[in-house]
């Protein structure tokens, strides 16, 4: 209970501050918060929910899921094989250093301006933290546990799952968490270049049409979506890494 209060305390104070500080605002570009909230439901819970919010989220979901599958798959392959790792690691470090938004024009040329391009932009940004963390995690698999699998003839799919991936799962989850915030950023950016739908696209439209409270409500929506997705991630993490947090709690006690 106290933890919940502490967690939401500061945001409540800041929102209140915003509310009262902007209450008498006559500045066209900084409308009162009350006005932004008033336009919020009509702006986003109408047809735009289906036309813009859901397409954005679907592209994020597909791009992120593709990054998870590719990143974990390739990462397990690279991490488990010393030669492959030595061969491709410098290249991976370079590719990771390329800022993904810069790929948008290139991907537009290659994949057009449709959904495919946006999914690829999200994938190309989310992939690296997942891939590199998986490589790190897979490479650090415990030797005794590896010997155990050899002795007890645990091979193939059981070995891949119970030895390689589960061992690496704390790192994989850390990478996936980074990738999620990158994915949200890229979801918006990819829609600001060439798009006909999406939250990013709509925010730009509001800006161009001088519908400033609506534009602000889009920013608010993106912030709320970010928080919601982070919460969902936390729930998933608790399921996947329950054992890991359990060990850490036990170690802290001793």
């Amino acid at each position, binding site marked *: 209970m106290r933890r919940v209060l502490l967690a939401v305390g500061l945001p409540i104070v800041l929102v209140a501050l915003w509310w009262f500080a902007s209450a008498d605002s006559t500045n066209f570009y900084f409308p009162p918060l009350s006005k932004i909230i008033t336009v919020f439901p009509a702006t986003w819970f109408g047809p735009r929910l289906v036309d813009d919010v859901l397409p954005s989220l679907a592209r994020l979901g597909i791009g992120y899921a593709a990054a998870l599958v590719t990143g974990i798959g390739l990462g397990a392959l690279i991490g488990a094989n010393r030669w492959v790792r030595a061969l491709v690691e410098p290249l991976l470090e370079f590719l990771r250093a390329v800022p993904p938004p810069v790929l948008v024009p290139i991907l537009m040329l290659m994949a057009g301006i449709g959904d495919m391009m946006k999914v690829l932009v999200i994938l190309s940004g989310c992939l690296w933290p997942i891939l590199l963390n998986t490589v790190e995690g897979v490479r650090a698999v415990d030797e005794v546990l590896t*010997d155990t699998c050899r002795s007890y003839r645990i091979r193939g799919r059981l070995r891949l799952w119970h030895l390689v991936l589960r061992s690496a799962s704390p790192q994989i989850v850390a990478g996936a968490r980074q990738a999620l915030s990158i994915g949200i950023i890229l979801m918006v950016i990819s829609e600001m270049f060439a798009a006909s739908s999406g939250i990013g696209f709509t925010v730009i439209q509001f800006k161009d049409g001088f519908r400033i409270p609506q534009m602000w409500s889009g920013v608010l929506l993106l912030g709320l979506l970010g928080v919601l997705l982070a919460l969902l991630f936390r729930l998933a993490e608790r399921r996947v890494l329950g054992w890991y947090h359990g060990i850490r709690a036990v170690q802290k006690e001793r």
Partner: protein
Amino acid sequence: MLTVRELSKTYDAKGRRVEAIGDVSFTVAAGEFVCVVGPSGCGKTTLLRCIAGLLAPTSGEVYVEDKVVAGPPDGLAVVFQEYGRSLFPWLRVADNVDLPLRAAGMAKAKRRELVAEALDAVGLADAHSAYPWQLSGGMQQRVAIARAIAYQPRVLLMDEPFAAVDAQTRADLEDLIRSVWARFGMTLLFVTHDIDESVYLGQRVVMLSSSPTTVAEDLTIDLPPTRDQLGTRSDPRFTELRGQVYAQIQKAKQEHT
């Protein structure tokens, strides 16, 4: 059942050749309980890893059931010293014991039966759904022993399995392993650095020299088959045998220094 013939192992450590095992030969009969004891740093773990097929010897062979060992042999289980690292922390106790059986493609009903029997044999019948890290060190090693039992090995190797637990737990586990051996009748090779433990547990004690390791002496332990911590350890014959092993180990240490 288990034969080690002229086994040697040398490592290349930064251009310097280190001879870990010089020349080791011994045999273990089917159903026998043999302890291997030696001074610290004599390559006991290296020897055990060679027997388990986890490490290729430089020369010489290991035979398990008349088949030369090249890779982990069939019907052989290992209990490692580092119980905390040899159990899967993301699997519950019963699933840890079950995993090798699943890998062997055994039917579910049979697996469940073996897991229950093995956990019962080590006194963990009520810990099926706990995670290993929720248990004490001694109990974790019991889980590792249960996993080995459920695997139904004909040969069981144990690598200083009780080195990391406290003295009282250790005594309990020693008696446990005697009872497991009596009940399941596997061939058991138990590596330890503890002289008392080797004499208390084994039917035979193979003493190793310091590195480069050879067999210093092979001693039959003619204590009665039923052993208990108080009676056996106060038996004059126990003291005598223990003294013999102790003297031999001391001698082995001095020869190399």
